[in-house]
């Protein structure tokens, strides 16, 4: 063979902004989401939910539903054959209510029927007599009553250390809904041998699998959870919702069962961001160097555990922000109430405390007469520093000062110069003349860890298979929209030297866990697994033929082909399978000291707002950001994450809040829960700071969460700057600005 090779750099590898493999199917309506799945003889499931935040079930009579034509099954807690409880961190939530309902919307019974309408009518026909009980809905009372999921405690430094300059503040953050556009949905298909296959919205199919098979009372291999099309997640897909229910109904009826929540049910069917109350005291010396930070945080976990313990830990470990301080005293409480359960949402605890500590940093800057960015620069945490809370040394990159400087260098927009109503607060409602507008500018920094913490065994499995057509990346990591397919494809291309790479999502029976699509971890952890497996497989193939290069055609040596891909695969596909674990983390001691985290990243935002102070209307004119990303594996995707995450933070600053009253969500619809639209979304300028990290592939860091952390306090700071109001809570409502 005389074919010659030239030194090749594979197309579509790391660093390029490749087109998404799922882009065209999604653009043409041909991408199958969980809610689009159909099956022959498929039934529809529906859920009866508690109308009370807390009640005892006195009588539950499902006979009227069972008697309806077209109804095939009605199940209650008595019909759960296995473990009656599920949960991510602690199994404390009944699959179906166990005699007492503990939050508004708790599932009580489930129905399978021929069609969705019949299923819903059957649900409505079930007779339940409740004895309403007094719900616990105040998180402070819950904390005082000892209703605590976790108390995370930090005692670091000299307890007697104090600074001359002291600022104290109390802050609140409302509950945010992830509001992924795709609601909870799935299809459970019985396998005819007593087992079941589930295709449902998820962020981690293996964690689902563990809870599902035990609640069904089935052996692990009898249940397979399959990755499927998911319309966004942002934390809302970490916990079980319809998963066990659909499987129970499918196994009971012997027929496929589909369940899809409508928007109103989605609002009660998934966990939310924890509302928080936060008390802070910052002490600094006259130069603005932080001396001591004290904080007490209460996060309302709602009725069941979900991930409240880990969220509380995060809020506590990141309670000071990306700043150096020798003395920190922090008590974080995740409490149990009868409010809707809270759990994961983008930022995972770091969002709440960031709003408070950045508000404090601004007050401190004002007290000292310092520029807000200068105060942050003077205290900036960096590589080699101990974390202000846990004391863990930052061994990876942490270019906080570079992030601040890059943000400060972005030009500011021109002053209000338009009478075009579309550019004014209130928009075409024509509420606000330009002369009434006050402009404000605000800054904020935030810090977040990546991957799982506190000794969690956090790993990802990947299998690379080479066959004559090219390479396949096998993983159970869940693509929720963030662009995982592209990044895994790019990593495998670069590492293998091959362009023909596809990503195959395996079910739980085919490959081990890839861990959760959360904690900004998949690019880092599953990306590293794919990198290591690809690198090893390439080395293995080159060694076999004593070659020096591999591409889509085969193996090369000194510019000549020594084996075609067909020859490489003559005895069948060649493959390499690995389980990658990131550097181990540790639990902390009784003072919260130790090495709980696997790495950190910082981001900063600058918001510019125009405010009508008389009506309390805000227009976010623009919001710019700089972020510490390690390395951009796909710059277009990185920018997409930063823009999208930032807008979620803007929403939390000015419009997004679940209104919860007596445990009941009062705005469980897109009419009443406001999300930013095209008209609300400000333009953004973005600076990517690339300072390679320790273990992520090619130095990459997680990038998904930091944009949602510092954006909120930056916008609120800008509103304070425009109005002079203290604004202690987020989101800022018109009445807060007007001072009602």
């Amino acid at each position, binding site marked *: 063979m005389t074919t010659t090779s030239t030194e090749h750099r594979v197309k579509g590898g790391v660093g390029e902004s490749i087109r*998404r493999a799922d882009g065209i199917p999604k653009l043409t309506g041909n991408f199958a989401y969980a809610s*689009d799945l159909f099956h022959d003889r498929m039934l529809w499931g529906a859920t009866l939910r508690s109308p009370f935040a807390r009640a005892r079930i006195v009588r539950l009579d499902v006979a009227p539903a069972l008697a309806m034509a077209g109804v095939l099954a009605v199940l209650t807690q008595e019909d759960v054959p296995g473990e009656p409880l599920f949960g991510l961190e602690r199994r404390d939530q009944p699959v179906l209510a166990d005699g007492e309902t503990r939050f508004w919307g708790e599932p009580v019974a489930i129905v399978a029927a021929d069609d969705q309408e019949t299923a819903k009518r059957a649900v409505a026909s079930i007779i339940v007599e409740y004895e309403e009980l007094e719900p616990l809905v105040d998180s402070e009372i819950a904390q005082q009553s000892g209703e605590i999921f976790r108390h995370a405690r930090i005692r670091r430094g000299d307890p007697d250390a104090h600074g001359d300059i002291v600022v104290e503040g109390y802050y609140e953050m409302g509950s945010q809904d992830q509001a992924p556009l795709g609601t909870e949905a799935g299809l459970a298909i019985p396998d005819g041998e007593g087992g079941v296959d589930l295709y449902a919205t998820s962020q981690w199919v293996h964690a689902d699998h563990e809870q599902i098979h035990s609640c069904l009372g089935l052996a692990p291999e009898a249940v397979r959870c399959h990755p499927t099309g998911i319309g966004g997640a942002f934390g809302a897909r970490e916990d079980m919702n319809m998963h066990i229910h659909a499987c129970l109904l499918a196994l009971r009826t012997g027929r496929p069962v589909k369940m899809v929540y409508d928007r109103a049910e989605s609002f009660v069917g998934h966990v939310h961001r924890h509302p928080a109350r936060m008390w802070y005291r910052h002490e600094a010396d006259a130069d603005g160097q932080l001396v001591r930070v004290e904080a007490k945080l209460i996060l309302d976990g709602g009725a069941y555990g979900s991930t409240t313990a880990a969220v509380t830990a995060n809020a506590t470990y990141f309670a000071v922000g990306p700043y150096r301080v020798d003395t920190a005293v922090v008590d974080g409480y995740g409490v149990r109430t009868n409010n809707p359960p809270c759990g994961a949402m983008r930022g995972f605890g770091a969002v709440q405390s960031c709003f408070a500590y950045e508000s404090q940093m601004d007050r401190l800057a004002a007290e000292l007469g310092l520029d807000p960015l200068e105060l942050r620069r003077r205290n900036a945490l960096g590589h080699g520093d101990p974390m202000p809370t846990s004391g863990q040394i930052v061994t990876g990159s942490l270019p906080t000062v570079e992030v601040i400087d890059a943000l400060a260098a972005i030009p500011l927009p021109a002053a209000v110069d338009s009478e075009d109503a579309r550019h004014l607060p209130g928009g075409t409602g024509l509420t606000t003349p330009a002369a009434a507008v006050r402009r404000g500018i605000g800054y904020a920094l935030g810090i977040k860890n990546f991957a799982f913490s506190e000794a969690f065994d956090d790993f990802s499995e990947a299998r690379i298979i080479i066959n004559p057509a090219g390479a396949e990346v096998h993983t159970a990591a869940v693509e929720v929209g963030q662009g995982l397919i592209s990044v895994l494809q790019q990593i495998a291309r670069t590492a293998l030297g091959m362009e023909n790479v596809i990503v195959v999502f395996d079910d739980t029976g085919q490959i081990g866990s890839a861990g959760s699509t959360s904690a900004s971890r998949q690019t880092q952890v599953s990306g590293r697994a794919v990198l290591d497996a690809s690198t090893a497989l390439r080395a293995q193939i080159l060694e076999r033929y004593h070659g020096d290069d591999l591409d889509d055609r085969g193996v090369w040596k000194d510019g000549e082909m020594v084996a075609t891909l067909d020859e490489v695969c003559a005895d069948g596909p060649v493959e390499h399978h690995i389980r990658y674990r990131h550097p181990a983390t540790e639990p902390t001691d009784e003072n919260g000291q130790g090495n709980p985290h696997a790495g950190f990243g910082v981001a900063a935002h600058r918001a510019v707002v125009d405010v009508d102070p008389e009506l309390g209307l805000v227009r976010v004119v623009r919001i710019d950001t700089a972020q510490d990303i390690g390395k951009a594996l796909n710059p277009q995707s990185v*920018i997409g994450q930063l823009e*999208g995450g930032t807008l979620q933070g803007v929403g939390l600053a000015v419009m997004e809040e679940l209104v919860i009253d007596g445990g009941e969500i009062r705005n469980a619809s897109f009419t009443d829960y406001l999300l930013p639209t095209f008209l609300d*979304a400000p333009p953004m300028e973005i600076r990517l700071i690339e300072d390679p990290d320790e273990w992520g592939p090619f130095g990459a860091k997680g990038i998904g969460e930091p944009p949602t952390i510092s954006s909120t306090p930056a916008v609120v700071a800008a509103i304070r700057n425009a109005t002079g109001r203290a604004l202690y809570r987020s989101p800022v409502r018109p009445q807060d600005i007007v001072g009602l």
Partner: protein
Amino acid sequence: MIIELTINGEARTATVAGSESLLTTLREELALPGAKNACEQGECGSCSVLMDGTLVCSCLVMAADCDGAAVTTIEGIASDGVLNAVQHAMHDAGAVQCGFCTPGIVIAATNLFAEDPHPSPDTIREALAGNICRCTGYGAIMRALEQVAEGSS
């Protein structure tokens, strides 16, 4: 009742219940799941289709009112597998993440450009204000649509 309508140029019939929405008919009866159900209140635009050339939220249209109508869904936008200018620009700009809003945005933007081939960025934002995207922050979508408006895509 039985309705007869033209969907993406093809004559179809459907049996619909009295209160059924066009969205339900498309998704459940006619095997056209491209229009998405995300709010069922006309707030998010995920279910957008063209009905006799008018942009509508199919969740708010009674299927019974579509007897004799011509409906264009996302499945009918690309012709013979060739993306239209909006789809093409969105693909190139990275304007698709989870993609649940994408069909509605493609329909609404295609409708806008049919009426106004060179809209300003402000006009694009207003025209798309009924389409919520939770993933992108709208940045990449705006870059794509501004390219189409400039005729450079």
